[in-house]
């Protein structure tokens, strides 16, 4: 397999290698300055709630996601804080949803960044509902973290569980 090795000024090296398949292909680099994105530096995660969660009326409450479907860079905490703290700076597509039952009058879901609301999702005004939120979020790759919070009005509020009902995921779409 043919390859090119580029050594760093002080240490390390990058190897560009051609795949061991027949045929000729051309990869054209754009006339732009930036960071090359490869799968190894593109964190992605998906997690869901594996248990119902009781929510207090009219209070933004962090949702708990205990089961990971994948966590490519081990950046999602599914045991204590239920948050995504990516280790690569850039712009992330973040998505979340939940299902709720009880005696509900309304609610929504929000993406929180570093403990404060960043983006608010769709408001629902029915009993037994599903809602979602989706947004691009810049993360600094070190201290920034995101979480999903629910705000619901009513009584006996119970957010449901399941990979199809109450879930949280995200992935890097553009490096910083």
């Amino acid at each position, binding site marked *: 397999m043919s390859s090119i090795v580029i050594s760093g000024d002080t240490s390390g090296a990058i190897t560009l290698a051609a795949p061991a398949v027949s045929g000729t292909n051309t990869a054209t680099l754009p006339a732009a300055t930036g960071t090359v994105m490869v799968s190894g530096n593109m964190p992605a995660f998906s997690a869901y709630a594996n248990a119902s969660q009781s929510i207090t009326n*009219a209070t*933004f409450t962090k949702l708990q996601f205990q089961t990971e479907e994948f966590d490519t860079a081990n950046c999602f905490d599914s045991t204590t804080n239920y948050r995504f703290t990516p280790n690569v700076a850039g712009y992330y597509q973040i998505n979340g949803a939940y299902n709720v039952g009880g005696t509900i009058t309304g609610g929504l879901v929000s993406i929180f960044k570093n403990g404060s609301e960043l983006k608010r999702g769709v408001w629902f005004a029915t009993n037994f509902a599903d809602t979602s939120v989706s947004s691009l979020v810049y993360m600094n790759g070190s201290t920034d973290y995101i979480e999903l919070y629910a705000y619901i009005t009513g009584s006996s509020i119970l957010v449901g569980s399941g990979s199809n009902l109450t879930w949280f995921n995200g992935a890097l779409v553009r490096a910083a």
Partner: protein
Amino acid sequence: MTLYDKIMALYPSLTTEDFLTVITLQNDSDNKGDYIKAWNHPTLAKPTQEQLDAVTGV
């Protein structure tokens, strides 16, 4: 009583809209309970802990 219930007992004029705009109650699911994350009501002062503690349930 929840924190929301206590605040409503102190300020019964507050609306659903208030709790989505000028007042934020938050719970970080860390077993520390509900707290006032933000209080930006234009006319009602943020209740003190003493005022909240004085509210009794019904």
